[in-house]
């Protein structure tokens, strides 16, 4: 974790469980922020994709949570935190194609079991911590130089 002195910008988005109408709003705002800051388009795309995947995961799988966006001159950080239910087997959750998503998510084209692997592919650094019954935190870092 960097100290607050290093944070040039920090934004916090509350994400509601099961709200598919609003899902994607936070990722869209993060994308616009980065574009306005003049960040390279290829990097903006990577952060946008990973943020959207993280936001959809919060909507689909969590009891509610938050998406935190931080940027300093060296790194962009996206943190997705939730209030449960937590992941029983992280290794299994990371496997491409493995999914526990309900039909409501699948009908919208999600829940193919590609979210976490895709976040890992987009980011320069990927850390996931989870405790069953407590919650999950995914931290994604993207190098700026």
């Amino acid at each position, binding site marked *: 974790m960097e100290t607050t002195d290093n944070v040039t910008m920090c934004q916090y988005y509350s994400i509601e469980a099961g709200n598919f109408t609003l899902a994607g709003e936070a990722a*869209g705002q993060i994308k616009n922020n980065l574009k306005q800051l003049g960040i390279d388009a290829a990097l903006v795309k990577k952060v946008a994709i990973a943020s*959207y995947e993280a936001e959809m995961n919060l909507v689909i799988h969590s009891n509610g949570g938050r998406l935190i966006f931080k940027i300093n001159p060296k790194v962009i950080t996206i943190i997705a935190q939730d209030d449960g239910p937590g992941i029983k087997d992280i290794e299994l959750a990371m496997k491409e194609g493995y999914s526990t998503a309900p039909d409501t998510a699948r009908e*919208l*084209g999600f829940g193919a*079991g590609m979210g976490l692997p*895709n976040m890992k592919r987009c980011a320069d650094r990927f850390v996931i911590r989870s405790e069953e019954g407590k919650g999950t935190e995914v931290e994604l870092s993207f190098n700026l130089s």
Partner: protein
Amino acid sequence: MTIQEIINILEADLFCGEDMLNKDILSACGSDLMSDVLAFVKDHTILLTGLTNPHVIRTAEMMDIAAIVFVRGKRPSEEIIQMAADRNIAVLMTRHSLFVACGLLYQSGLRGEVL
């Protein structure tokens, strides 16, 4: 290949993005699985899909996708068209199925991601 050429090949209707007809398209992705679309890595891309929910537009937004082609004559709602217009994404509709629409574009030289 330009968006205008894609309209001609697919005999498609255009709902928004009239100012983008000359935009150059280098690759295409055909899928109803937004999860798979989000893992597509090419640029200057169009998306062909049979899904018409708002997350198709959101996905296209995150991916910098220039145009969406709704297949099988699936007419998008006004809300969807407005969402796309706000994000500078062209919206097309063709009567062809996903397979045939992709085949017609491939035959004309458009390529996808080779895994």
